[in-house]
């Protein structure tokens, strides 16, 4: 009883004390409103403040690579990712003499080489993609690339006979994977993982980076984009194959999903001889640069290595076959045609926006 009375007394005393300080309730209301207003502005402003973002650009894998991370661990994440990238490049690059692929290319049935787990797995994948695309993507294209001189200072149209000879050795079945991570190639066969390695490296880097406390990951491996964000939307542009430094369409990617956007086209790496343009993506059956109405193929998905291999394959087939192939494989893709049409998988409806001068036609 006593305590209840005391409490009651106390409460009334308190409220009496407070009263004079805000004699009219209107005034406290005014303060309340103004403070709400100020705080809401402060929150809006703090939203504009940039989070810790770290970006690093390096020349590696025969291209220009930019790694960008945002979030608490950004500095550490970018550093570790670039270290890992250089390690993988050293294994996969055919041009580096002591790389595992260079060693594989000088192996034979009698002297197979032992590969690291990564390289062995990537070779397995490359062979699988080659099989699935009926050899349209083929990791053994290296001898043809050498004949044409791509990747060197001396790009030229080679002798037809030489091509016919070299194209016989373009066959992924001539790469043999043995037990215990050992492998060898048949005589005259050379492996170049250029069509799949960048996609694969992107996947591995993304896997590693997802372990860090980050809000955004954006990897640009020479035009192969791997992206992830915790919440907000990202917009990825697809380069126009006709005019440089402009886009043919944009793709908006929703939060919290790893997404790779990979484009293959011959609009950058090409040379002109006697008025004819020769691109760097080869038709694996003829040994000549692929020449169809498709200017570029963009594949969107979670698996970068697969996207990398398939975009190369789709680029070399006839446009209608490319559509059929994309459907059969369940690929989300954008085929950029030379008449200004973008053929877009209907599964991408609502996510792709065409830029001026381009029109979208959905297919399924």
């Amino acid at each position, binding site marked *: 009883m006593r305590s*209840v009375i005391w409490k009651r007394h106390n409460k009334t005393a308190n409220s009496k004390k407070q009263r004079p300080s805000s004699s*009219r*309730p209107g*005034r406290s209301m005014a303060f309340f409103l103004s403070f709400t207003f100020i705080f809401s502005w402060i929150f809006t402003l703090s939203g504009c403040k940039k989070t810790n973002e770290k970006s690093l650009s390096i020349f590696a894998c*025969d291209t220009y690579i930019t790694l960008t991370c945002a979030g608490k661990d950004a500095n550490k994440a970018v550093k570790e990712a670039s270290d890992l990238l250089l390690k993988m490049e050293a294994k996969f690059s055919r041009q580096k003499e002591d790389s595992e692929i260079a060693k594989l290319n000088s192996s034979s049935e009698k002297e197979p080489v032992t590969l690291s787990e990564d390289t062995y797995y990537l070779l397995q994948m490359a062979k699988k993609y080659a099989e699935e695309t009926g050899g349209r993507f083929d990791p053994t294209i290296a001898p043809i690339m050498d004949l044409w001189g791509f990747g060197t*200072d001396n790009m030229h149209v080679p002798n037809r006979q030489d091509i016919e000879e070299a194209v016989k050795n373009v066959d992924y079945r001539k790469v043999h994977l043995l037990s215990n991570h050992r492998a060898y190639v048949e005589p005259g066969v050379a492996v170049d993982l250029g069509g799949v390695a960048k996609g694969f490296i992107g996947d591995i880097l993304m896997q590693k980076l997802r372990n860090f406390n980050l809000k955004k990951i954006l990897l640009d491996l020479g*035009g192969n984009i791997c992206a992830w964000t915790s919440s907000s939307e990202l*917009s990825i542009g697809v380069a126009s194959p006709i005019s440089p430094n402009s886009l043919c369409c944009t793709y908006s990617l929703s939060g919290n999903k790893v997404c790779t956007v990979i484009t293959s086209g011959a609009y950058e790496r090409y040379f002109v001889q006697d008025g004819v343009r020769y691109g760097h993506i080869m038709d694996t059956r003829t040994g000549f640069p692929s020449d169809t109405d498709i200017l570029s193929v963009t594949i969107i998905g979670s698996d970068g290595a697969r996207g990398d291999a398939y975009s190369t394959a789709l680029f070399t087939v006839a446009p209608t076959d490319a559509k059929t192939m994309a459907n059969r494989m369940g690929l989300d893709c954008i085929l950029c045609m030379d008449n200004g049409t973008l053929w877009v998988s209907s599964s991408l409806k609502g996510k792709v926006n065409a830029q001026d001068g381009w029109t979208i036609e959905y297919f399924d």
Partner: protein
Amino acid sequence: MHKTDGQSNTSTKKRPPRNFRFSSGDAFIVGAIVLCCAIIIGGLFIHRHIHKDDARYVRITQDGKVLLEMDLREFSEPMEYRIDSDRGHMIIYLSSEKVYIKESSCADKICEKEGELTSPGDGAVCLPNRVVVQIVSGNSDEGNPSGKVDAVAK
């Protein structure tokens, strides 16, 4: 019994009267604070906007090292920037309007094919020379190519 009585008593006392109204003084305080905020925020937006439109810098790097970084407005007349290294040479055209790679010793000439660089986000990369030429803006949005997208697949 006493307890519940007491509580209901105090709560009726604390509740403000229903028909209160702003006095002119209250309205003045609210108005003044809102106005101050509006002026500050408006000023910030205008400040950002002005900077966004104006500052375009050209940044030339070789192997990650910055060779040149200049506000395009400083090029009162066009000039050519020459890079000589053991990898080869390049000539870059610079003016207040645009930047482009005029000549490069590389074989593929991808950098020359990039054409004219005019807006923040535009860039040309020469792999053999390890040279990157970029247009960047002075404000924080510089990373966005063309200011519209986060990255470009090519």
